[in-house]
């Protein structure tokens, strides 16, 4: 069964090829069927492979399938080889399964759009590339997938390319992530020159033998890899592209910019955990970046008007939690939160998509309101997703995954009270903005009429994701509540575990109560502020300081302005100054000299016989003079 693994990424690529070659000539329904079926079969196969893998695990809990050797240059011989273990299995499950649901949803969402088959072609290519990223057994193949998903992200953000703003957002996403990718490429070069291989399994074995903990090489390599992860996962300081990436269609935001691609950075760090463990400084930085990002993005999400931008900032913030988990060495907790987050964030984006479509492409939450009666299924599933995002205690998956991270931040091997405090504050803010979003969107008075009523194609994915984001959390229960460690046991076949320092169950209970109270407090405050007496918020926003702070947060803490001032404007200025290209002057001068000679010679070529005779005589006289006198 496991040897069928290669079909999982091959199916989406096949779907892409068919759609790219003849997609525009086939009817829309056929194109959609191919796009959805390829991912659906892939997901089905993943489920079978997963069952097989868990019931009869291969030796060493790692299954490697080498298809062929990619190239062999100067000792670098990466193969097209797939590596299946607990981490990549979790990732491919989420990618294919959530990917399938989102493809299905897109059938209706994108109906009647120009470039219907193009959309599915790009989406299939994305899923294929993402599968290569997580299945690649060497970092070169991972990098191929990494750039592939970057390309698809670019293509899909700019899907409605006729609006120049979308093209701008696509270019921004591409260029900003490229900054990180460059760092990552250099990191790969260092790993190869120092350790002589880019095979993941070999790197993890060799690195601890060659490098002592905290020496400069692993710190450098880990920092450069972190650069790539930060770019892809939209963390500080490269987070500015993700809110603008919402210019793409909503299913794209759900699949690429919430569930899968943006978590590639988390995957990379979890994959290279040995290198990061050898560089504790960088691992601390990972945690600090996560904590700062989750707070900054949380405050920004609090002030957005556009529902998709709220979700975008919320994604940045939740990935911040994953980075925090990685930073405190809670590897499996990070992957666990990735999985739950993929479920509920995809659900929220798809739910938001239904609302946006229902209200005729209205994204401003202040113009929504009161749609809960019109689209009840969407409302209830969206509510479940929001509860998971806000980490409502006991009944949601988000509570268990986030609680696990906070627990390790407080009590794990690399516990750090500051990171814990940031995470707790972040949880409060998360509950605040989530409740605000739900209240503004679904409650209050209806401001518009219903434009499009979703059918089962759009509602089925919502229901499935709602079930997953609730019950997905129950595979890992804390000591106080049933003590189930299915997920972390599974992860610890690959990722190192995290020893809890001291305190035992009572500490854990206190931490859980704190987290639970924080979440409920956040929801309560938001309810009071945005539903009971919204005039207080309005008054706060009207005040001089409040309005300035609101604008500052709404613009994402002025990072765009900072980068415009620091990087964009100087380059634009240089381009402006150098419009005539002063380096080119050297070459234009050479060309000018040649042209002058040409003009002079063509002047002597007068066609008059007597001129030529004069020329011959002059030449003869000069030659004789030289011969005689010199």
């Amino acid at each position, binding site marked *: 069964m496991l040897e069928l693994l290669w079909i999982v990424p091959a199916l989406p690529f096949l779907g892409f090829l068919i759609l790219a070659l003849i997609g525009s000539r086939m009817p829309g329904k056929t194109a959609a069927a191919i796009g959805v079926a390829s991912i659906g079969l892939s997901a089905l196969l993943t489920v079978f492979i997963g069952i097989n893998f868990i019931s009869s695990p291969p030796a060493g809990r790692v299954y490697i399938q080498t298809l062929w050797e990619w190239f062999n240059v100067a000792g670098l011989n990466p193969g097209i080889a797939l590596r299946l273990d607990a981490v990549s299995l979790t990732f491919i499950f989420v990618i294919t399964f959530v990917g399938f649901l989102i493809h299905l949803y897109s059938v209706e969402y994108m109906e009647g759009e120009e470039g219907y088959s193009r959309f599915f072609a790009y989406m299939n290519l994305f899923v294929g590339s993402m599968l290569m990223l997580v299945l690649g057994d060497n970092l070169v193949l991972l990098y191929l997938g990494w750039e592939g998903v970057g390309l698809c992200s670019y293509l899909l953000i700019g899907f409605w390319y006729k609006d120049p703003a979308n093209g701008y957002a696509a270019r921004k996403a591409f260029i900003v992530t490229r900054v990180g990718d460059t760092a990552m490429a250099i990191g790969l070069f260092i790993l190869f020159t120092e350790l002589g291989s880019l095979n993941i399994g070999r790197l993890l074995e060799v690195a601890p033998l060659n490098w002592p903990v905290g020496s400069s090489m692993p710190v450098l390599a880990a920092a450069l890899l972190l650069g790539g992860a930060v770019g892809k996962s939209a963390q500080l300081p490269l987070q500015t592209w993700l809110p603008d990436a919402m210019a793409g269609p909503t299913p794209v935001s759900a699949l690429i910019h919430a569930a899968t691609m943006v978590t590639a950075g988390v995957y990379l760090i979890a994959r290279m955990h040995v290198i990061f463990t050898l560089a504790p400084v960088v691992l601390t930085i990972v945690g600090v970046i996560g904590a700062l990002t989750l707070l900054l993005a949380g405050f920004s999400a609090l002030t957005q008007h556009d529902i998709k931008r709220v979700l975008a900032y919320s994604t940045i913030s939740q990935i911040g939690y994953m980075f925090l988990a990685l930073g405190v060495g809670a590897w499996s907790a990070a992957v666990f939160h990735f999985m739950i987050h993929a479920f509920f964030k995809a659900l929220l984006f798809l739910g938001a998509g239904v609302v946006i479509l229902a209200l005729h492409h209205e994204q401003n939450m202040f113009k929504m309101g009161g749609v809960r009666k019109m689209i009840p299924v969407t409302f209830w599933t969206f509510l479940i997703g929001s509860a998971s995002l806000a980490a409502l205690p006991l009944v949601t998956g988000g509570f268990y995954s986030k609680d696990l991270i906070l627990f390790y931040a407080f009590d794990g091997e690399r516990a750090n009270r500051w990171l814990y405090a940031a995470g707790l504050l972040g949880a409060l803010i998360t509950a605040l903005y989530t409740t605000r979003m739900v209240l503004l969107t679904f409650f209050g008075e209806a401001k518009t009429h219903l434009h499009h009523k979703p059918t089962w194609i759009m509602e089925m994915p919502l229901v499935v994701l709602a079930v997953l984001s609730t019950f997905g959390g129950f595979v890992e229960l804390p000591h106080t509540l049933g003590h189930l460690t299915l997920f972390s046991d599974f992860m610890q076949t690959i990722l190192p575990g995290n020893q809890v320092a001291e305190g035992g169950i009572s500490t854990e209970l206190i931490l859980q109560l704190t987290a639970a109270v924080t979440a409920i407090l956040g929801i309560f405050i938001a309810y009071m502020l945005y539903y009971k007496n919204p005039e207080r918020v309005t008054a706060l926003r009207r005040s001089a300081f409040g309005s300035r702070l609101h604008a500052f947060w709404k613009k994402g803490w002025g990072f765009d302005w900072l980068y415009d001032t620091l990087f964009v404007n100087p380059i634009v200025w240089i381009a402006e100054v150098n419009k005539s290209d002063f380096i080119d002057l050297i070459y234009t001068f050479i060309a000018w000299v040649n042209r002058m000679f040409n003009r002079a010679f063509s*002047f002597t070529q*007068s*066609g008059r016989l007597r001129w030529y*005779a004069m020329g011959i005589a002059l030449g003869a006289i000069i030659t004789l003079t030289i011969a005689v006198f010199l």
Partner: protein
Amino acid sequence: MNTVPMESGLVLAGILFILGFIGVLVRRNIVFILLSLEVMLNAAGLAFIFAGSRWVQADGQVMFIFILAMAAAEVSVGLALILQIFRDFKTLDADAANNMRG
């Protein structure tokens, strides 16, 4: 027998040559240019004659005969060209035939 000194002979040949050359440069009528060329050729021939008598060698006179033969050939070709030019341009002005200017 008194011989003309070679220096004065060469000066005479030089003056003739320069006169002929000036004729080539300043005359626009192509027939006169051909005439001036003949003067130059004969100036060169004169120089050979003087050199031959100076060293008492027959080679100078042999060369002169060569020059005569060459001049005859040149004139026949030149006159043919002149006829052709006159037919094409309806003039004997050498400067009119400047179609090949750059």
